């Protein structure tokens, strides 16, 4: 066991080293960076197949594991959405589907996409791979815990998918799992289904707490020399803030889920009032369904920012690199991320305007919700101002960024409709809400994920994904998804409620049929278009164009590792030393249009850089 710890690669503690080698010249004074505060991290190197690829403690491997499992779950979610759209667009063709099935698909699709796909992908996938690299650490601070966190997620997914096979099937209560219906007959999966869902969520929260501790402490306590918080790329700020939100919001979900499980299994009445069912008064009494809603949305609203903030951070970096221009207003962007994160805890009841809660809460939450629009708008302005007077490379990555801007602005603005309490009254529980959250939570973050995949694939795999296939992938996805969700808002205007298996016998039938058919066809096309990416990845891994070192000519630390892809320990013998922020693009007086974070001032003495 002990030979796994020998510093085989000869890592040196750098406590007394300075870049200039401790000399007395003026050049080394300019380049001086404080010595290291702590000795080098003790890393466990696996040697067997199992310890190198299965129970691996390397954050990069764990990141890829999260990415693959989250994507696998996401594909299941995608298939469920096709089944839903089949019923809504072509009900005669969906004759095999009962209302029970439909509601089970609705529920599982929602829960999978929000929690098991998006959250796991951004935090577990991108977080694990990029955070240590971008802050200059060799790995996460607790690699063993990190490894356990992935396997906890794995079991959580297993339990969730197992609910498809239990008597009664998976829960069909809607991803919001509202009681009393979630645990009563009349809702599918009200026995085993909801129980397994709650167990799966508890396992998920446990795993993401373990992961979250890693991401937070690595960012706070394991940065390399010269890396201040205000020199971190916005990707790290986004994921870091999202992790803080996760640590504080998941408890409410855990508590709500636990109490609902007790109501289901032990017959407690936390959320269950007096209920008359099939002519019989049930044993429950005295509970409050609205209490569950408060607990759920205290989690649920920060949850959407847990998905959005990493997306905001990543897109800032992608736009910056591919416009060869610093992100406009970096400090404001950091404060906006932190501000949005903090405010997100004070807006939850905008999901409950018509829930029957105290009406006076409506005033408070409408105000806080519309306040949160301000820092979000500032971020949007800063993204487009980054493009202004940039030197924009219109490659596939930039296309995804542009697609993000269009879809996020659209989705974010429809949020202003719903946040304004009065306007929410007619629109709540209609297709307007579905269109809003798919646009802002589904399509916009998806644009970011795709852009990030095309951007970092050369780092992870050492090759470029094919540009032509990438462009086809982008245009089909962007145009297809936009044509699904933009018109859907108008179905909400005519009042079509959500979670309706069918609209039969209603004046809405005539007007909504054609639209539903169109949306369903678009959905099938967009889903199929994702095969282009899968084909692209497989083709590239076999015969793709090699990317070499720092192919995008970016500045942040992940691009300056000694080997590509980076190996375990990331930095080889010497940890990087940071001298500047990651946005020194197109600096006046510099030879190239980029200056990496590790470039010492003495090498660019004639430039006018921002003091960071």
């Amino acid at each position, binding site marked *: 066991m002990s030979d796994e710890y020998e510093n085989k690669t000869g890592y040196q503690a750098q406590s007394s080293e300075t870049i200039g080698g401790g000399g007395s010249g003026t050049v080394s004074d300019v380049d001086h960076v*404080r010595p*290291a*505060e702590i000795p080098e991290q003790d890393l466990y190197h696996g040697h067997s197949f199992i310890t190198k690829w299965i129970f691996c403690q390397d954050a990069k491997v764990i990141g890829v594991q999260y990415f693959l499992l989250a994507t696998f779950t996401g594909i299941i979610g995608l298939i469920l959405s096709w089944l839903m759209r089949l019923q809504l667009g072509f009900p005669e063709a969906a004759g095999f589907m009962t209302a029970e099935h439909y509601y089970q698909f609705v529920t599982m699709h929602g829960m999978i996409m929000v929690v098991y796909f998006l959250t796991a992908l951004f935090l577990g996938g991108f977080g694990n791979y990029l955070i240590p690299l971008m802050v200059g650490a060799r790995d996460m601070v607790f690699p063993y815990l990190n490894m356990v966190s992935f396997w906890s997620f794995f079991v959580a997914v297993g339990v969730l998918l197992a609910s498809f096979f239990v008597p009664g099937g998976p829960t069909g209560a809607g991803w919001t799992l509202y009681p009393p219906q979630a645990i009563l007959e009349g809702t599918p999966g009200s026995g085993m289904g909801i129980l397994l869902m709650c167990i799966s969520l508890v396992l998920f929260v446990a795993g993401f707490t373990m992961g979250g*501790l890693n991401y937070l402490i690595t960012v706070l306590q394991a940065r390399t020399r010269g890396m201040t918080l205000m020199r971190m790329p916005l990707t790290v700020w986004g994921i870091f803030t999202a992790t803080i939100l996760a640590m504080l919001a998941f*408890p409410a979900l855990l508590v709500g889920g636990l109490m609902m499980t007790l109501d289901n299994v032990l017959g*407690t009445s936390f959320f269950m009032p007096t209920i008359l069912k099939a002519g019989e008064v049930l044993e429950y009494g*005295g509970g409050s369904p609205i209490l569950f809603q408060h607990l759920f949305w205290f989690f649920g609203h920060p949850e959407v920012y847990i998905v959005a903030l990493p997306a905001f951070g990543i897109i800032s970096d992608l736009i910056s690199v591919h416009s060869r221009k610093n992100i406009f207003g970096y400090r404001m962007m950091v404060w906006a991320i932190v501000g949005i994160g903090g405010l997100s805890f004070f807006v939850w009841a905008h999901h409950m305007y018509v829930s029957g809660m105290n009406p006076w809460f409506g005033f408070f939450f409408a105000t806080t919700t519309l306040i949160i629009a301000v820092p979000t708008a500032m971020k949007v302005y800063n993204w487009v101002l980054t493009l202004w007077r940039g030197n924009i490379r219109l490659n596939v990555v930039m296309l995804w960024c542009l697609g993000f801007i269009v879809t996020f602005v659209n989705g974010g603005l429809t949020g202003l409709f719903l946040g304004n309490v009065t306007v929410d009254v007619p629109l709540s529980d209609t297709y307007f809400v579905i269109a809003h959250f798919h646009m802002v939570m589904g399509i916009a973050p998806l644009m970011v994920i795709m852009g990030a995949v095309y951007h970092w694939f050369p780092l992870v795999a050492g090759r470029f994904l094919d540009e032509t296939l990438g462009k086809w992938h982008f245009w089909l996805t962007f145009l297809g998804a936009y044509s699904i969700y933009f018109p859907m808002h108008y179905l909400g205007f005519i009042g079509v409620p959500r979670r309706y298996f069918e609209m039969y016998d209603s004046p809405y039938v005539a007007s909504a049929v054609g639209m539903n058919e169109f949306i369903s066809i678009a959905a099938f096309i967009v889903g199929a278009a994702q095969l282009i990416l899968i084909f692209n990845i497989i083709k590239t891994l076999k015969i793709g164009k090699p990317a070499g070192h720092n192919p995008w000519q970016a500045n942040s630390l992940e691009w300056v590792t000694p080997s590509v892809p980076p190996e375990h320990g990331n930095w080889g013998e010497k940890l990087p030393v940071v001298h500047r922020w990651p946005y020194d693009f197109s600096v006046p007086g510099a030879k190239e249009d980029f200056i990496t974070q590790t470039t010492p001032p003495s090498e660019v003495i004639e430039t006018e850089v921002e003091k960071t």
Partner: protein
Amino acid sequence: MSDPKIEGYEFKPGFKGMAQDTGSDQTMFKGVHWGKAMMWIFLLSDTFIFSCFLISYMKGRGSTLIDWPNPSEVFALHVGGVDVPLLLIAIMTFVLITSSGTMALAVKYGYEKNRKMCGWLILATAIGGLTFVGMQAFEWSKLIHEGVRPWENPFGAKQFGSFFFMITGFHGTHVSIGVIFLFIYAYKTFKGHYDEGKRGWFTTMKGNYVEIEILGLYWHFVDLVWVFIFAFFYLW
């Protein structure tokens, strides 16, 4: 506790110092071991869990239409022919707070590398915790015997039993997990794992006396949560 010595870094006092630390490179919390920082953040998250429980409990109790049972009566012990209200809880609280005291002492002796004192004090803490759990189990069995169930009870509102068992159960589980770790750490202390830096069985990282301080943080948290439960559930 004085500022740690860090080469090339000058500490400043007060908020200015905090701001400087936050704006500096490498670490935000100077000289703080990664494991300690981790425990603080985990405890913050755990605080939110217990807060959600207690706020839900207050909501449930505040809106009950059926009278809530009187805690002084329900939790009284009949000793020597006299009904002593809240006797058991008082003893439990005393035991837990004392165990926090022994834990703090254990941490001190640990840093002084006094293996024997440290080990005995950890063991004392563990036994304190075990006693607490035992008394909690006794209380549970007494109430169950009197007809209190999670779904109903003979004293008043249904939710009394539900909240009681759920919150004390969750807390008791936390205490039990702590007790298990305490016994393991007592063993490791006596065996000298922290002196020689022996690598752990799971994480394979080198042992260090700071682990006892980290467990101590957890134990004090468990104690503090009990004080809140005691105040909200039993005294109100």
